[in-house]
């Protein structure tokens, strides 16, 4: 016992000395570089040095050589900011994405009718839950954070994320979806704290932006997996994502994920807010395809406007997701849909989250079309537009509009010179 203790102490000591030695060596090397002398032959610096600045130290910035940016989404045609200074729809640069987390700075943005971003002071902001509950509750942001939290990966996708033959790259076709790690309190925790009445069937989630955007959501969804989220990717939500608090409605269209959340009204019946007015459709069937996102995938490399330098081995890479659950399979076709191959996953698929898939492919330099399709764990599958038109028993035309959210297969055409273009064009 004593011997064991002693040897452990010695080990710790030795470790400290070792760590100290490394630090000293690093200082020596840095000093040598600073003096303009190479520490050892052949170790000359190949690049200029970034001088430490207050900004670089306090909140890191990416390399100046990384220039990937968000752009105005083409659907809707409204610029962001517009003439009033409002933000409408802004798409994320999926063509440059790796992994599954969208950097908070590049997360897509959408607002209900085009709106300003409220500059919310978290000390003054409160969230109130009322309606069909035994005990209405008003929480400050500090109080909200005292409840047990969850941290989950979830995508959000805008209903405007539709692809057509006119778009050039994957940012235009699919850039209105993003995936983050969200932290917050399960809505069920808060509803139980308030004492949900048996009459509760729906709830209205309302934001604090100037139009007080509000959406109606089934209470069954609220009790299942909705999160009252204050964290995104390890830090506070960005204002563009609803600082200081938003609701996550996993798998539902983006508009339901009310930002700047200030009020939850639990109701006995369906309330039609302006958002639901926007969802109005003549038929129940089409309306039903408007809240939960279907199974969907897209190849992000190689994709529109990119170019393969020549025949050879390539890793085809893309994203898959479903609003109904976790992604089960992804298949890739490199011959225009004649044959399909199982893709590998780069991370473990999670419920209502992007998964990164890949397929190793040897391109022989001939013209071809590549595409992906996915299935989810509740038995839904992503289909070609032709198949969807057939199910609805309508003639398939080139500009066929998929009912509800467009989760159809996206083809990319690869020319002999390696240029990648929109396969729907």
């Amino acid at each position, binding site marked *: 016992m004593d011997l064991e203790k002693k040897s452990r102490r010695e080990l710790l000591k030795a470790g400290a000395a070792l760590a100290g030695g490394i630090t000293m060596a690093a200082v020596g090397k840095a000093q040598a570089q600073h003096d303009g002398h190479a520490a050892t032959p052949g170790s000359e610096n190949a690049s200029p040095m970034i001088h430490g600045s207050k900004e670089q130290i306090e909140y890191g910035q990416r390399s100046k050589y990384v220039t990937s940016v968000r752009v105005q989404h083409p659907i809707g045609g409204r610029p962001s900011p517009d003439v009033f200074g409002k933000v409408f729809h802004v798409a994320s640069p999926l063509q440059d994405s790796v992994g599954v987390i969208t950097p908070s700075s590049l997360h897509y943005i959408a607002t209900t009718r085009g709106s300003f971003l409220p500059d919310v002071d978290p000390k003054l902001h409160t969230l109130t839950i009322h309606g069909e509950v035994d005990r209405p*509750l008003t929480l400050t942001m500090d109080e909200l954070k005292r409840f047990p939290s969850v941290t989950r990966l979830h995508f959000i996708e805008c209903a405007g994320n539709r692809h057509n033959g006119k778009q050039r790259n994957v940012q235009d076709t699919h850039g209105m979806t993003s995936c983050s790690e969200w932290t917050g309190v399960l809505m069920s925790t808060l509803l139980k704290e308030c004492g949900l009445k048996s009459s509760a069937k729906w709830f209205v989630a309302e934001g604090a932006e*100037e139009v007080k955007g509000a959406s109606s959501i089934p209470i069954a969804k609220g009790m299942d997996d909705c999160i009252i989220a204050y964290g995104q990717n390890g830090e506070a939500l960005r204002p563009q994502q609803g600082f200081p608090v938003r609701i996550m409605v996993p798998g539902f269209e983006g508009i339901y994920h009310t930002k700047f959340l200030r*009020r939850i009204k639990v109701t006995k019946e369906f309330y*039609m807010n302006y958002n639901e007015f926007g969802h109005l459709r*003549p038929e129940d069937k089409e309306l039903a395809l408007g809240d939960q996102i279907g199974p969907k995938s897209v190849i992000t490399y190689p994709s529109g406007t990119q170019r393969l330098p020549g025949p050879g081995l390539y890793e085809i890479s893309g994203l898959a997701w479903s609003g*109904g659950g976790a992604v089960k399979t992804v298949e890739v076709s490199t011959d225009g849909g004649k044959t399909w191959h199982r893709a590998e996953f780069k991370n473990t698929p999670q419920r209502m989250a992007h998964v990164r898939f890949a397929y190793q492919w040897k391109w022989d330099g001939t013209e071809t079309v590549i595409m992906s399709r996915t299935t989810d764990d509740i038995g*839904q599958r992503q289909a070609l537009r032709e198949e969807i038109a057939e199910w609805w028993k309508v003639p398939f035309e080139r500009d066929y509009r998929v009912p509800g959210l467009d*989760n159809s297969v996206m083809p990319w055409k690869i020319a002999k010179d390696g240029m990648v273009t929109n396969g729907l064009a």
Partner: protein
Amino acid sequence: MASHKVVTISLLLGSLLASAAFAQSPTYGVGRTPTAEELRRMDISIGFAGEELPPGRGTVKEGAQLYMQKACVGCHGVGGIGGLAPILATKQGADVSVWKKERILPLRAPNATIVWDFINRGMPLGLEGTLKPDEVYSLTAYLLFLNKVIPEDQVLNKENLAKVKMPIGDAYGKPHEFKLNAPRLEGYPY
């Protein structure tokens, strides 16, 4: 013996009731109870029955004046047509069905309360939430009149707003019952 049983049963019942009550009491005890007055003020969601509407009244004539005074006309155009902001009056004739007409809030909304609600919470630009109830009733009346939903002499108030017959009637899709871990639409494979 029999009385012993009764005591045991009542004790059991008592503890069951107590635990049920305990399960329904707050667990964390964090936050505060908003007052009834606070809730009344913040509850701007108007249901189909119009219960949450504040007292007040408005006319088409007053609405037309407010449309100019509050500068609605600047963004939405004269008579609700031709501005940068969304169109508020149809350019189509009475023979065209509501689904073939433009997506106009005071025309396509299944209930006039939705029009009232959005003007109240979201208008006018930069001064949202500053309209008084009478002004919201008046602007709602004016916009409904522009779309030939109500006659020019109709006065709108808390009692009759939810009863206005909207052109869409019942001809619109209703939300289905949401089921967990179920496809978006029963029988739809995609």
